[in-house]
């Protein structure tokens, strides 16, 4: 049973932004509702006003522009999974979409919602981090862009202001000789929360050298993070088995410092190593 609330049904984005501006701090946006409605039913969130942004045209659409891929905040995870641009240019993101929740939830859950809720196990975040994504936030007062890495500050905490909507997430199209991969480990083979999320991206050159590596972890800590120590190690180096092993070790350390979960440490080490090895094969074999 849901608690009582007022539900506003804007027809356009400007209408929605007006409603948010007028309604904060009690008003929150509702898109797919796959987290929000569950939380409201469970009593952990009780907004008195919901602004329905599901279906707003301005939040839909996946396109390529100015060397960037742009995904509307209201795009569902299912749409992401089906999209040819994503399949071609961002398999790392598609990989996460494929194991996100379950097919029914995917038809409602939005990319924007996943980012804005910023649950520690949010599967959309690690791939977007290694894609170097930034989020576009819009309010009645204007637009701003924030790198995703800065946007998420902690578990369920982002830089989103109450009257803002996440209208899009964008990232530069990957250059040639680059590849990415994503892996999720949970307690069953489908439809579950991640225990460990790993995403990697390598941009290389023809000669076998790694120009840039990006490694992002999710679910192992309250906040998603890039493992900069490992990335620094791999930058402008040939990508060797030793380098990969060391990077994996650094990632595992970053994920679970001494007192942390030995299990997660081992899993992170294994997955980072495997994903980097696989990505290297993809680029250079």
């Amino acid at each position, binding site marked *: 049973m849901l608690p009582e609330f007022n539900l506003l049904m804007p027809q356009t984005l400007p209408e929605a932004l007006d409603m948010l501006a007028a309604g904060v701090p009690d008003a929150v946006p509702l898109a797919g509702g796959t987290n929000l409605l569950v939380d409201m039913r469970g009593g952990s969130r009780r907004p008195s006003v919901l602004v329905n942004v599901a279906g707003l045209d301005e939040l839909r659409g996946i396109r390529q522009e100015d060397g960037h891929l742009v995904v509307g905040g209201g795009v569902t995870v299912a749409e992401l999974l089906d999209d040819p641009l994503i399949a071609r240019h961002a398999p790392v993101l598609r990989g996460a979409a494929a194991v996100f929740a379950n097919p029914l939830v995917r038809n409602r859950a939005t990319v924007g919602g996943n980012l804005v809720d910023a649950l520690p196990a949010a599967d959309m975040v690690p791939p977007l981090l290694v894609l170097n994504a930034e989020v576009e936030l819009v309010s009645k007062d204007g637009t701003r862009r924030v790198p995703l890495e800065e946007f998420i500050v902690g578990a369920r905490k982002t830089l989103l202001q109450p009257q803002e909507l996440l209208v899009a997430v964008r990232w530069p199209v990957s250059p040639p000789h680059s590849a990415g991969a994503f892996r999720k480990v949970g307690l069953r083979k*489908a439809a*579950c929360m991640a225990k460990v999320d790993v995403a990697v991206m390598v941009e290389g050159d023809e000669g076998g050298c790694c120009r840039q590596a990006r490694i992002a972890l999710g679910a192992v800590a309250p906040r998603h993070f890039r493992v900069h120590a490992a990335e620094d190690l791999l930058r402008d180096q040939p990508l060797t088995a030793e380098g990969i092993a060391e990077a994996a070790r650094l990632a595992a350390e970053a994920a679970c410092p001494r007192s942390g979960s030995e299990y997660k440490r081992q899993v992170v080490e*294994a997955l980072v190593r495997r994903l980097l090895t696989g990505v290297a094969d993809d680029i250079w074999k």
Partner: protein
Amino acid sequence: MKYKAKLLPPVELPELRTVGKPLRRVDALGKAVGATVYAGDFTMPNMLHAKVLRSTVPSARIKRLDVSKARALPGVVCILTAEDLPDAKLVTDIPGQTGQKIRAGSEAQVLASDRVRFVGEPIALVAAETLDIAGRALESIEVEYEVLPGVFDPREALKPGAPIVNEPDNVVARWKIRKGDVEAGFTAADLIVENTFRVPFIDHAYIEPEAGVAWVDERDVINIRVCTQVVEHFRSIARAMGVPHNKIHIQGTMLGGGFGGKEDITVEIFLALLARHTRRPVRLAYTREESIQAHCKRHPFIITHRTGVKKNGRVTAAEIKMISNSGAYPYLSPYVLLYATIMAAGPYRVDNLYVDSVSVATNNPFTSAFRGFGGAQAAVAYEQQMDEIAKALNLDPLEVRRVNYLKTGDRNATGQVIKSAVWLEETATRALEALGEKVVSPGSIKVGQGFASYMQSYGRITWLHDTSRAWVSLELDGSVVIRCGVPDLGAGQVNSLCQIAAEVLGVGLEDMTIYSTDSALTPLAGTTTATRQLYMSGNAVLQAAGRVREVLLDRASKYFEEAPEDLDIADGVVFVKEAASRRGGEPSSLNRSIADSLPLAELAAMCAAEGLPLSNLALFRAPFTAKLDPEDLQGDVFPDFTFGAHAVEVAVDTETGEITLLKSVACHDVGRAINPAAVVGQIQGGGTQGLGYALTEEVVVKDGVIQTPSFAEYLIPTSRDFPTTEAIILESGTGVGPFGAKGIGEPSLTPAAPAVANAVADAIGVRIHELPLTPKRVLAAVGRARGIGD
């Protein structure tokens, strides 16, 4: 090792027309098009909505309970607390008994008055005009607890000075088996192997949460429409409410799954009380979270095996200790413990056997029936122990079992002679043969194979004097009606009865209509539990239909001037067998002439005109035995047993701890498959529940609080988790069920989890002694194995 299936003894099972065919079940289409009405799908005019206030602490005294604010809310019609129900005590003892005395200490409070003993214990009932108002009323009820020390580990609960959850000493039940001389047996052993195994709380996780509607009618009868495995609960509800038995009417619905979780009284008593107090219809439907909190769980067990063996694997002595966690209230703990005790040593000849078992109360969710009923937990231990013995002796796991398997005519742990086929080797070899050679595994992925044999009881404890009744009637147009109280959990209970009656009366399944699950209008058939319905109600239907057939053929014999044994019925036509076969070909409706055949409808009309009975009410009795001496538990306990095996191949990722099931095969001797498609469904479904038991399921309870409150945390298998279990059905025809049937409902689950545990141990070379086999536990074990290897 290449396994070859053992030859089956020759079995001549007659080819039947309806029984043995994978026909579309009578309830299937209604469910498929969404027409079937479940307990939560009823509404009535003027209906109220109920909610239950439950304890949020595991051990406390209720200092203050103030419902005044809630009562004052507009739209709140009734609030009940223990104060309003001074005499309401609920029988939680084994249900469906006839005149048996109720076990002392087995009554539970309907609503907590002074003490609460587990999180979720019901404290107050609310009935309101809408669900919203009921919810707000719940929030307005004020409860003040005086928190008392709780105890959560059964071993702690046994220690002197432990908080007392169940008077006087937290011991809810004890059983022991004393057979032969274990001292001598251990002395004769070449090796002694000892292991302890643990299994957790499990939830039934039926997709249909508990629900129902109740109303009081013009006869002052309280009618309750509810999903239940036991319509005989009307007696206990009547008792709790202080009304005569014939004033409670349970209309059971088709269940959306039971598995033992709807065997106890759930919503019925709350519905009855609120309906009576308000004199309006009342609906109560649990949320998923409430269902997980409110209904029983599978008993956690700690089982220690100490086994003496000869070099060839022959068991010389076994000493087994079992502790089960009864949770806050006894419910069926003593019986689950009894089953576990009797099946503790597994399907093996153990001449020197001591078993000591105890069920202990704690401030945890209460535990009761769950598919397998102690037999499943016992199997997790005894089959892993067998593999450990094989490893210690460097013998093949099948070989170790071969030298110990029970055979027909042997005595089991309680000295009961097993009379039906004991196809242990036959089922195990077939499962292993179908499993095939182990695949080669690259690098950090380790592949293992494992199997488990089992025995599971078929039918209820015989000292309960089990009975079932069914009524079969031929209508004047040749269609058939069955009335039987049997609850249908979804496993095809009512359909089996239809196929049996159709077979006997020579009509098609499409000519059958069954009315079931009504405590007043259908003959009482007992519980749908203990893998007993096909045995009990199936035999009752067989008898009833058989007597109708006798009347028909007797009358027909006069009509045809042939002996009744020369007549048969098929496709709704009675005919002379010899005449049909003289014309060549099979006796069938196509092979008839007017002279030697007669439509059933015409025969029925003839009989009706002469006042001959076209219906029969049959009562079927299981064997009635005396209760065993608890000092040694030697004697007959069950009508029959089912035997089989499950084999799996797993791939263990030794770097992430993930386990992937590559292949799953199960082979069971079901005696006779009434509907083979339904049997396959049970083998695959029960098997999958067992696979979940091994790998993904655990109700995590911390200091009495469930940490896995919904399906997001309590993980049952999805379609992506396991390959389909290949089901190999064997039919020995030797069961005590109709047409020689044995059971499959519980047996299908029992061997699956130990098979997985054995496969994982085979893969990584080290055993994990508790379920579930989580990635964390796997990695820790792999680490241990590396340590050993160094």
